[in-house]
Each structure stands twice: as C-alpha cells, then as structure tokens.
C-alpha cells in the first residue's frame, strides 16, 4: 500500500474531509459560514468540548469511561467562581491552578475507586456524577454566581486575542499538543493503550493496569477542572446545572473520532476532529434554521453511524484473528509430529 492510499484510508483523513464538506455545504445555505473568521468562532465555541473530549479519551483508551467529567467541571467551576467573588484579590493563576487541582482530586477519587476497589468505571462515575453535582449545590446553596460578582480579570483573560485567536482557543491548542505528546511519547500513554488494548497482556508485560487507569482518571479530572474555570468565565455565570449532559458530548466526540469504547484504539487527532464535527453541526444548524431538538436527533444519528462504522472495522479485524485461532485449534499438536516424521 502506498503512503497516499494509507493516508486516505485513515479515518482521521476521512473525518476531516467530511467536516470540510459540511462547511462547504453549509456555506451555500448561509453565506459567510465558511470564512476564516467564522471558523475561528466555531473553534473557540468548541474549545471546551475539545478539552473535555481529550479528558474522556484518556480514560476510554484504558477501557474505562468517565461520566463525571461535566459534574466535575460544574463543581470546580463553581468553587473558583465563588472564591473569586469572595476574595477578589486572589491572583488568576492561583485560581486556575486551584480549578485544575480540585478537578484532579475529584478525578483521583474516581480512579481510586476503580483501581483499589475494582469497581466498574461506569458505576463509579455514574455515582460521582450525581455526588459532584450535589456537592456543587451544597457549596453554593443553590445560588448563582453572576458576572458582576466576578472580577473583570477572571472573566476577560480567556477572551484576550493573541495572534487572531482568543486565549480560550490557545488553551485548547496547548492541551491538544500536550495530550498528543503524552499519548504518543510517554510510557504512561503507551501503558494506557496497552491497558485498554489487552489488559491481561498488559499485566503480563509488567504494566500496572489499575494504576494506569487511576492516572488516566486523575488526568481526566484535571482537564475537567480546567474546563470548569474556562466554562464559568466564558458564560460569565456559575450555577449548579452548568454543562449538564455535557459528559455525553465528550463521549460522542470520542466515538465519532474513532476511539474504541472497548479501549486501546484511537488518536488525539481523531478525538479533536470528532469534537469539531459536533461543533460545526451545533453552529451550523441554527444558522440554516433547524431547531435544537432536530440538532439533538442529528447528533445522535451521527453517533450511531460512527459506532456502526467502528464496529465494521472491528469486525474486519476480528475475522483475521478468528481465522488464525481456528487454524491454531486445528493444527494444534499436529504440525510437530508431521515435522518429526
């Protein structure tokens, strides 16, 4: 197979082409949709989803799932917003680090339960999803933190333009680069792929699968905490129900981007494109006059299509394995004796 053919067959390339095609198609209905300034707006709108999708990806790669990312975002966001309102003098850097730290701690709780108590990730994070939201309610007493209570610095930094893009977008770019490096060039990233690709083989290779999952959950939490600050500052309000249901968008971005829910398969680029795909649809449909409910149905259909697409690829791979295994079963024990004869 030539390099070009391989490149074209990659799902990342395919997904990119589909997104480009969608942009072109939407431009014919809504002039100006495809111009660079609007694309930059779409990217900025999708920045938080990209970060959260990468958090989700890290966990899903290890054959787990983190349904608590949005609740974690809400709690961390609420905590720093209240702190900013209560003590306006605290430096922003400290607040951001605090958001990341709180998020990481909540993620570590998930990871600990999965690692040490060997609980199924979906049960753990379904539980912590409601617990973290409940904590946000207890913390705030159900009250909102509104724009006028937050400092201008807290609200404006993510909006500052640097080289044509807001800081929010740049933060997403930096997170993408860091997660890319982590997935590809660190022993932890490799261990995450191995833990998800074949947990038993990973154990045999001397990898502590439970600990790898713990780290993945902690990292996921840290990114959710960062997203908490970004969300509160972007929408200039903090309340208990922010980003509700957003954990499903993060899972959807991963699935569309080719991350296998069974673990061990997928790339950072795929996840980013999966998030951008959802971002483009979200931005385009209102422009061409489609109701939010239809949008939800469309997003849902795309997710199912993506899963069908993934399943077909998996099955193709499965067939090869099955064939080998069948041959193994049948030739087992025979070949040696024939060689001997």
């Amino acid at each position: 197979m030539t390099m070009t053919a391989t490149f074209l067959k990659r799902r990342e390339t395919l997904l990119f082409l589909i997104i480009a095609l969608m942009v072109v198609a939407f431009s014919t209905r809504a002039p100006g949709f495809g111009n660079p300034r609007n694309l930059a707006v779409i990217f900025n709108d999708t920045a938080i989803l990209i970060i959260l999708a990468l958090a989700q990806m890290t966990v899903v790669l290890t054959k787990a799932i983190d349904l608590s990312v949005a609740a974690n975002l809400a709690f961390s966001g609420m905590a720093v917003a209240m702190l900013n309102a209560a003590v306006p003098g605290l430096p922003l850097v400290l607040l951001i680090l605090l958001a990341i730290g709180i998020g990481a701690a909540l993620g570590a709780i998930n990871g600990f339960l999965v690692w040490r108590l060997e609980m199924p990730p979906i049960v753990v994070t379904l539980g912590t999803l409601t617990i973290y939201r409940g904590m946000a309610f207890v913390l705030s007493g159900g009250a909102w933190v509104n724009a006028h209570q937050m400092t201008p610095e807290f609200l404006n930094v993510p909006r500052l333009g640097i080289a044509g893009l807001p800081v929010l977008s740049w933060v997403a770019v930096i997170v993408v680069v860091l997660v890319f490096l982590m997935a590809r060039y660190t022993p932890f990233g490799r261990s995450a792929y191995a833990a998800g690709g074949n947990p038993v083989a990973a154990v045999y290779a001397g990898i502590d699968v439970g600990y790898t999952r713990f780290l993945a959950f902690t990292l996921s939490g840290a990114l959710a905490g960062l997203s908490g600050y970004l969300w509160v500052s972007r929408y200039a309000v903090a309340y208990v129900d922010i980003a509700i249901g957003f954990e499903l968008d993060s899972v959807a971005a991963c699935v569309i981007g080719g991350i296998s829910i069974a673990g061990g398969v997928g790339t950072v680029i795929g996840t980013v494109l999966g998030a951008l795909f959802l971002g483009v649809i979200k931005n385009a449909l209102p422009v061409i006059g489609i109701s939010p409910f239809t949008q939800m149905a469309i997003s849902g259909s795309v997710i199912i299509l993506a899963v069908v697409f993934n399943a077909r690829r998996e099955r193709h791979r499965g067939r090869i394995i099955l064939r080998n295994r069948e041959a193994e079963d049948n030739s087992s024990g025979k070949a040696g004796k024939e060689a001997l004869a």
Partner: protein
Amino acid sequence: MMALQHPVAEDRLAVPAILEMRGISQIFPGVKALDGVDIALYPGTVTALIGENGAGKSTLVKILTGIYRPSEGEIRIDGSPVVFSDAQAAIDAGVTAIHQETVLFDELTVAENIFLGHAPRTRFRTIDWATMNRRAGDLLRSLESTIDPTIRLKDLSIAQRHLVAISRALSIEARIVIMDEPTAALSRKEIDDLFRIVRDLKRQGKAILFISHKFDEVYEIAENYVVFRDGKAVGHGALATTPQDDIVRLMVGRTVADAFPKIAVTRGAPVLEVSGYSHPTEFRDISFTLHRGEILGIYGLIGAGRSELCQSLFGITTPTSGTVQIDGRPVTIRSPRDAIRAGIVYVPEERGRHGLALPMPIFQNMTLPSLGRTSRGGFLRLADEFALARTYAERLDLRAAALSVPVGTLSGGNQQKVVIGKWLATQPKVIILDEPTKGIDIGSKAAVHAFISELAAEGLSIVMISSELPEILGMSDRVMVMKEGLSAGIHPRAGLTPEMLVRAATGNA
C-alpha cells in the same frame, strides 16, 4: 497403519451399534485433523477414546455434537446415515456431550441451567416453573443428588456443578452420551460417584464415549477402547484382553527421531533455584535448579499445575511458601514487573489473550515490557523503540510489511515471534516458554525449535512446558514431570522414553 474396515468388535456382532462413524476425515486449511476414522458405539457399553493432546479427540467430539461437519465419511445411527447440520440436529438425533469445562450460568438456578433452551412451557408459552423444577429434581435424584433445583448455580461446589452439567446432558432424551475428560476436576470420591452414574446409564442401554487420559479410570469403567494418534484411529478392541503397555505403545507410536536441533551445551552455573514452592490450590512443594544454557522441560497432563507454577514464578499469582533464587541471590516476586526486573520472563500459551495487544503496532508490542530502556527523561524515543524492535524482528526472521502495522494482521507463527521477541528484548536470564509451538505451522515450528536451541547455546536458561512428547524429549536437557500439582520426578534426557513420561504423568507404574 492398521486399517479398520470393520470396526465392529468381533464378539459383539450380535448387538448392532447405535452409532457408527465410517471413514470420517476432517480437513482444515493445511491440516488433516482426522484421517479416515472408524468408530462404533454399542448400547450399554462404554468405549474409551484415548490419545495424546492434539490426536484429534476434540475434533471428533465436535463432529459428533454437530459443531463441525466432516469433510469425508458418514455417520450412521441405527444403521441409517445422518447428517448433523448444526448442534441442534445432533441433540435431536440423541447425542449429548458432557464437556471438560462445563458451560453453565452462575446467576441462574439449577433448574434453569438444566433446561436452558428447552424449558417446559405452559399453554401460554411462558416457562412452566413448577414442571421445570420438578423434572430437574427428578433428574438430580436419579443421580442420587439432593441439590435443590431452585438455588443458584453460584452456590454450588465444583462437583455439584458437574452433576448439574450431567443432568443437563441427560435432560434431553439422549441415547449416546459423550464424556470429554469428565474427571479432570474431580476428587477420587467424586469420581466414584460419577462412575456410579455411568454404570447407571449403561444399565439404561445408553452408548457412552468416555474420553480420558487416565488409564486406571479407563480400565475401571470402559469395555472397549479406541486409540487415536495424529488424527488416525490406530487401534481398537476390548480392554479386558489388552494390557496397558500395548495401549501406551499405540498412543505414543514411533520412537522419537533425532529431528529436534537441540545443540549440546555444557551445563553452566545454577541460575534459577526454586525450592519448596507451593500454592494454596494449584501446586505443592516444587523444587528444581535450572542451570545456564539448560532447557528444563515440564511435562504433565492438562491441569497438572504446570502453567500455574510458571505463572507464579512470573508473579501473576503469589505462592504461599517457598523460595526463589537468581544467581544465588534470593528474590521476591510479587508482580510481573518484579519478575522482569529479576530476569525471569514468561511467554504464555495463549498468545492472543495473554501475550499481545492486537490493535497495537508490532514495535509497540515488542517494547512494552522494556519502556524503561526506550525512554529518556520520561519521554519515549521512537527511534530507540524501532531500533530495538528491528533487532529482534531480524533475529527472529519476522515477516511483516512494516513494524508499524498492527500485530493482529500477522499470521499465528509471526505473532508468536513478536511475543518471543518482546521478551528477549528485556534481556532476561530465564525464559519460560508455555507450549511454545502450539498452533503454529510446520515451518515456523522448526524455526522456533532451532531458535530455542540457539538461545540455550548463548547461555539463556529455559523452562519449556509442552504436552507434545516429541518436543519434550527432543528439546529438553532434563524433564520434570508434574502430576496433580506435585513434581513426579526430574529425569535427565538420556534413557528417557515416551512411555516412561506418560506413565509418570498418569500415575500408573
């Protein structure tokens, strides 16, 4: 080769066979798993099917239960030809099988397990629980068991589960009962109970095919025997007139030719010393010393504790007592990571399940246990990884389009090379090979043997588990035989015969 034109035992001509298989062959791509096999089963008679691992016994069972359709030959029931197009067809024809590993459902009740798929129905087509529980109770009582049909399977002991499996097999009106190593997991007392059931089935006129490795059991329960070797039925007859030695000879066949390229190596200093090594359930009081450049073969029946012993040495399970020394220094192994650090690696039998992450590229699989050596400052260096992978790919003559393709796309033999390469890359002192040539093609097999021998010549110490007598006898410097979790002696290769090994492993002198 003895031709078996008339499988009907001479003195039994009066009673017609219930089931006859004539000229059955099963051909898989590249392998003839069964080659013109004839078998006859008679009412009220137990026929023992004897043969080494891989002789074709399981394939025969799969044909009889409708899972495989034979490439050649015919099956007759009561004299008329039948074709089992699927598993249900075999059940309808009255064939039932009790498997070695019983497939049951923990969360369902005993009665549900027995009648799963053919539960009695009420006239509204819903499950008739009362009838189902009553019939399950009847079946269990006929096996002289008092298990309550309404309790969940997970609350039963292994032996009780076995009874449930037998009840399940008997819940369909079967005339032909296949028992595939039914005693493997049972204690002597439970075996006695099982044999009482078998005799009961005999009295009911059922034809029984009894597959076992253990000669004492075979002689105790069966009247007739058939011996398989390399997919052929090489002998049959009445057990009463056949001494055990004859059967062992049939089973083992030819003497071992010098086809294995084990290079003679002068034994070096002790590398691995294991003493008094025990596990709560799997093995007890195992001691051996492995020298530099030596290959220690471990032979035994399936379930003798060979793999469990080696997995424990590799840190997968923790022993209750015993010590391990490497180069004379005691080491504590609590995880595979500890074992790898101490220089012990384990190449598992099930490559797919234990050895490889199939979606990951070849080079990433190869470097997985060596990430410490291919990274600097917390970052992996792809160039180092590729270099390491390339070194071992070349050494093992790995055939792949590129080192970046997923391992899942390789053939079985090449996958095995990736597993071995991955462990060699950790630069171990001791390498444990569990059934190293199971399921790989002849060409790769010879290459693997040559390679193992080369490794020993380079000074690596090797423990090799194998169920294939020619491989054990051809490759090992010494052979440890394991039986029911105990060491049944360590023998030097010189003067060792296949018969001696089989006897030691089956516990029948």
